[in-house]
């Protein structure tokens, strides 16, 4: 799978769920994450930004990050030995991705 390309794309990965530590019942399936390379640029701040920040924020970073735009619930079917039963488990998968606000990249 070619992930080394600009943009923000669905990327499959495997999830395995166990009913207990021993894995008496377990199920797995492929779901999707969003992985990609979105544009960002950092440059000297405008004078208004310098003034407002008391000249501490000398640079401005305008960026976008690869985010999940839409999720869906999917079922994981749990396989058990005879005489055991475990209900299906619902987990989330990404359905659509986009380059959007970087909400968690600042500190």
């Amino acid at each position: 799978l070619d992930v080394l390309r600009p943009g923000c794309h669905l990327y499959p990965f495997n999830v395995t769920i166990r009913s207990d530590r021993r894995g008496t019942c377990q199920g797995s399936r492929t779901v999707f994450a969003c992985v990609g390379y979105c544009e960002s640029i950092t440059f000297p701040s405008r004078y208004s930004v310098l003034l407002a920040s008391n000249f501490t924020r000398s640079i401005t970073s305008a960026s976008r990050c690869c985010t999940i735009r839409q999720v869906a619930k999917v079922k994981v079917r749990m396989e058990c030995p005879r005489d055991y039963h475990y209900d299906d488990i619902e987990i989330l998968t990404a359905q659509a991705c986009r380059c959007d606000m970087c909400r968690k990249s600042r500190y």
Partner: protein
Amino acid sequence: ASTVNLQSFIGCAVREFRFTARKPGCRALQITTDACWGRCETWEKPVLDPPFVESHQRVCTYNETQLVTVRLPDCAEGVDPGYTYPAALRCDCGLCATTTTECVTSV
């Protein structure tokens, strides 16, 4: 010199940037400097536990800088003609540090 295809470029690099240095009491000055531009790897992935999404966000920002001071033309009497801005020596994918950086979403 090798040419880089910006459409498909992945990573974070020094790139020429033009801006207008302006402050009250002086005439504006066009400046060409080195800033940072690129595409950093970012992702979001659904997980089983709250908050149900794990994310990895980085932006292309200054790693090593050099302060440059220029003289703005035609400043009013008593106005310091000096205008100082950071030029990028090295760029890297990293977090957006709000102590030194105005972090915004690009459009």
